[in-house]
C-alpha cells in the first residue's frame, strides 16, 4: 500500500460520511465570516428557521468594505450608506446567532486571513472555510482551507459540514536558495506563471522542498494565499517548528496539556515519503529574479529585467487575442522594458502582503528616500495589531517621512470596495493578488509585485530592479 498525502490525511480525519457517489460530507472546524458574502446566508437561515450549529467555531469581522481613513466616528460615521448597512448587518447577525464579532474599533480587527492566524484561530490539521477565495492563506499552517460561496456559508453555519468532492494531489517542490530580494511573492508568481491560472484547478497544492521550509510563516501565508490564483482551492505547507513557534501563546491556540497533545498530533501531519501525487513539478528558486505582472491575469508574469511581450510572437490564436486585449487594457506597447514603465500609485497591503515582515521589507527600502512626485503611495496594515507593532518599531514614521500614507487595516485597494481605488488609466504597483480588469477600480491598471518591489517603484516612479536600488546605509 502506498503512503498518504497531507491533504488525504486531513480529508480522512474530517470525513463524517462517504457518500455513495464518491463525494464526502466533511466536518468544518473553523469558519471565518465577513460582511460581504454573509448577509444572504444569515437571511437564508432566518427564512428557513434554522440555527447556527456551532457558533463558537465561527469568528466574524468586517474587512472588505470598511474605510481605512480616520475611524474615530465609528461605524455610524461611514460615509457610504451601503457599506455602513453591510457592516451593521454583520454586527446584528452575529449578535442574533451568538457569533463572536471583532468590531471595527477592536485592536484585533483586520483582514480575516490576517486576524485568523494572528489569534491562533487557524491551527494545523483543521478544516477552515470562509466566503472568500483567499482562505487558501491558512494552508500555510497545514490546515485544509478554502473559499466557499454564500450558499455554502449558510450550509456550514447550519450544519458545520460541507459536501465536497475530493480534489487531486499536486506537489510543487521548490528547491534551491531564493536569492536576496526574491520573496515568497516572487515564488508564488513564478509558480502561477509556470502552471497558469487554471493549472491547479481540481487540485490541492502542497508546497514542499528546502525553499519552502526556509520561508517564514508570513512568507508561507503569502504563497498559500495565491494558490487560488493558480486555480487551486487550497494550498498546503506541512507544519514544522516554525509553525508551532508562531502559534504558541496566541489567544485562541490551545494551552498547557492541550497544546502538547496538539503538537504531538500535528507532527504526524506531513505527506508520507511514499505518498503518490497526481501531479508534481519542481521549481528552482535560486534561478528566480524579482517578478512583475504585465497583463490582466496573475499568470502574465515577467522578470523585472524583461520587456512587455509581443502578441505577434504567440502562435495560438486565442492566447494571442487575449494578450492583445490585455496590452490594450494595460496601455502597454510590446517590447517596452518593464523598468521604463512609469507608475502613478502604489498599494502595499492585502491578505497577500500586509503582515509585519512585509511592512518591514518595504520600510527598509523606503527609509531615507522620498516617494516620486508623480506617485501617490499608501500602506495598509493587515490588522490593528500589526499596525500597532509597526508603530512600535517606527515603521510608520519611515513611511510617512518618505511620503506614504499610513492607513487603518482592511482589504482596501486590493479589491477597491471602499473609497480606496484607482482612477481610469492609473497604473499601480500593488502587493495584492489580482490584476484583473477593473479590479482596483474601473480602468485601473494593476501590476502585482512584492512589498520591496512596490516600495522601490514608489521611490523611483517606475518599476525598478530592487537588486540595483541601494538601501539606505
Amino acid at each position: 500500500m502506498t503512503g498518504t498525502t497531507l491533504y488525504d490525511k486531513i480529508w480522512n480525519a474530517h470525513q463524517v460520511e462517504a457518500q455513495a457517489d464518491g463525494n464526502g460530507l466533511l466536518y468544518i472546524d473553523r469558519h471565518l465570516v465577513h460582511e460581504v458574502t454573509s448577509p444572504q446566508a444569515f437571511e437564508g437561515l432566518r427564512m428557513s428557521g434554522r440555527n447556527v450549529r456551532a457558533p463558537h467555531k465561527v469568528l466574524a469581522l468586517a474587512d472588505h468594505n470598511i474605510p481605512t481613513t480616520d475611524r474615530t466616528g465609528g461605524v455610524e460615521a461611514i460615509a457610504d450608506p451601503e457599506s455602513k448597512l453591510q457592516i451593521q448587518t454583520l454586527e446584528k447577525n452575529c449578535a442574533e446567532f451568538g457569533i463572536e464579532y471583532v468590531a471595527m474599533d477592536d485592536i484585533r480587527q483586520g483582514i480575516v486571513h490576517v486576524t485568523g492566524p494572528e489569534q491562533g484561530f487557524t491551527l494545523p490539521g483543521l478544516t477552515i472555510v470562509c466566503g472568500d477565495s483567499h482562505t487558501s492563506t491558512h494552508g500555510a499552517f497545514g490546515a485544509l482551507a478554502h473559499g466557499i460561496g454564500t450558499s455554502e456559508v449558510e450550509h456550514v453555519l447550519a450544519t458545520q459540514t460541507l459536501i465536497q468532492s475530493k480534489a487531486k494531489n499536486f506537489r510543487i517542490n521548490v528547491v534551491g536558495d531564493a536569492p536576496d530580494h526574491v520573496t515568497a511573492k516572487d515564488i508564488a508568481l513564478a509558480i502561477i506563471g509556470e502552471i497558469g491560472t487554471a493549472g491547479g484547478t481540481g487540485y490541492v497544492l502542497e508546497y514542499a522542498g528546502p525553499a519552502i521550509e526556509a520561508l517564514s510563516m508570513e512568507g508561507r501565508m503569502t504563497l498559500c494565499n495565491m494558490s487560488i490564483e493558480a486555480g487551486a482551492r487550497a494550498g498546503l505547507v506541512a507544519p514544522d517548528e516554525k509553525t508551532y513557534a508562531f502559534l504558541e501563546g496566541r489567544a485562541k491556540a490551545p494551552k498547557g496539556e492541550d497544546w502538547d497533545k496538539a503538537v504531538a498530533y500535528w507532527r504526524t501531519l506531513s505527506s508520507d515519503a511514499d505518498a503518490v501525487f497526481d501531479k508534481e513539478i519542481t521549481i528552482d528558486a535560486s534561478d528566480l529574479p524579482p517578478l512583475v505582472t504585465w497583463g490582466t491575469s496573475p499568470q502574465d508574469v515577467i522578470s523585472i529585467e524583461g520587456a512587455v511581450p509581443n502578441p505577434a510572437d504567440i502562435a495560438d490564436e486565442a492566447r494571442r487575442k487575449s494578450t492583445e486585449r490585455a496590452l490594450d487594457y494595460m496601455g502597454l506597447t510590446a517590447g517596452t522594458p518593464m523598468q521604463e514603465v512609469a507608475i502613478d500609485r502604489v498599494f502595499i497591503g492585502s491578505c497577500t502582503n500586509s503582515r509585519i515582515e512585509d511592512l518591514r521589507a518595504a520600510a527598509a527600502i523606503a527609509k531615507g528616500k522620498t516617494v516620486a512626485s508623480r506617485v501617490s503611495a499608501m500602506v495598509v496594515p493587515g490588522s490593528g495589531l500589526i499596525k500597532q507593532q509597526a508603530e512600535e518599531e517606527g515603521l510608520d514614521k519611515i513611511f510617512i517621512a518618505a511620503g506614504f500614507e499610513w492607513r487603518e487595516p482592511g482589504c482596501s485597494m486590493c479589491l477597491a470596495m471602499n473609497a480606496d481605488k484607482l482612477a481610469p488609466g492609473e497604473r499601480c504597483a500593488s502587493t495584492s493578488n489580482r490584476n484583473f480588469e477593473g479590479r482596483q477600480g474601473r480602468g485601473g491598471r494593476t501590476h502585482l509585485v512584492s512589498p520591496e518591489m512596490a516600495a522601490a517603484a514608489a521611490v523611483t516612479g517606475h518599476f525598478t530592479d530592487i537588486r540595483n536600488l541601494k538601501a539606505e546605509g
Partner: protein
Amino acid sequence: MQKFNQLTGIAAPLDILNVDTDMIIPKQFLKTIQRSGLGKNLFDEMRFTPEGEEVADFVLNQPAYREAEILVAGDNFGCGSSREHAPWALLDFGIRCIIATSFADIFYNNCFKNGILPIVLPQEDVDKLMEDAKRGANATVTIDLESQTIKGPDGGTIAFEVDAFRKKCLLEGLDDIGLTLQRGDAIDAYETDLASQPWR
C-alpha cells in the same frame, strides 16, 4: 432552488479566456445584502460606458442576444473570487447554462447552488458551439440534463458529463442543507469523537 431539466434558448458567444468574477459582477455591486436585482449590473464594465450608455458591440447588448439564456465562453470561466453574486447576477439576467472548456472551481460549485448548469466540453465541441452561437438568434440550443446532451441548431448532439449528486439536486431543485440536516446523527457522532482533540 429553481429546478433545471430541459432548456431551449439562445446561446451567446463570449469568446474571451479567463472571464473572471470581477468582469461578471464588479465589486461596487457587492454591497447589497440581497441576492436579487444583480442582473442589471451583469458584466457592467463591459456592457456599459462609465456614463452608463450601452456598449453596442458587447454581445449581450446586441439585438440577437439580449434574451440569451446560455453562454458559450473561453477557458477558465469564473476565475477569481468566491462571490456568489456572480451566479446570482447571471441568473437574474436570465442565464441558466454556461458552456466552456473549463471553469474555476468555486464558481462552478456556486452555479449548482443556484440552478445554473455549467457544462465542461472539449475544445472542439466548444469551438463548434461558439461558431453556432455567432449565428445569432437563429441558433437556439437545447440542453437536456436528464440525458446529458446538447442539441445544436443543426440537429447534431453533444454529450456531457456531470456529477451524479449535483445532477440530482438540479433536476429536483433540492436544498442540500435540508439533505445534510437529515444526516444530523452522523454529525452528532462525529462531534462526540472530537473530545479527544480538544483544540478542535
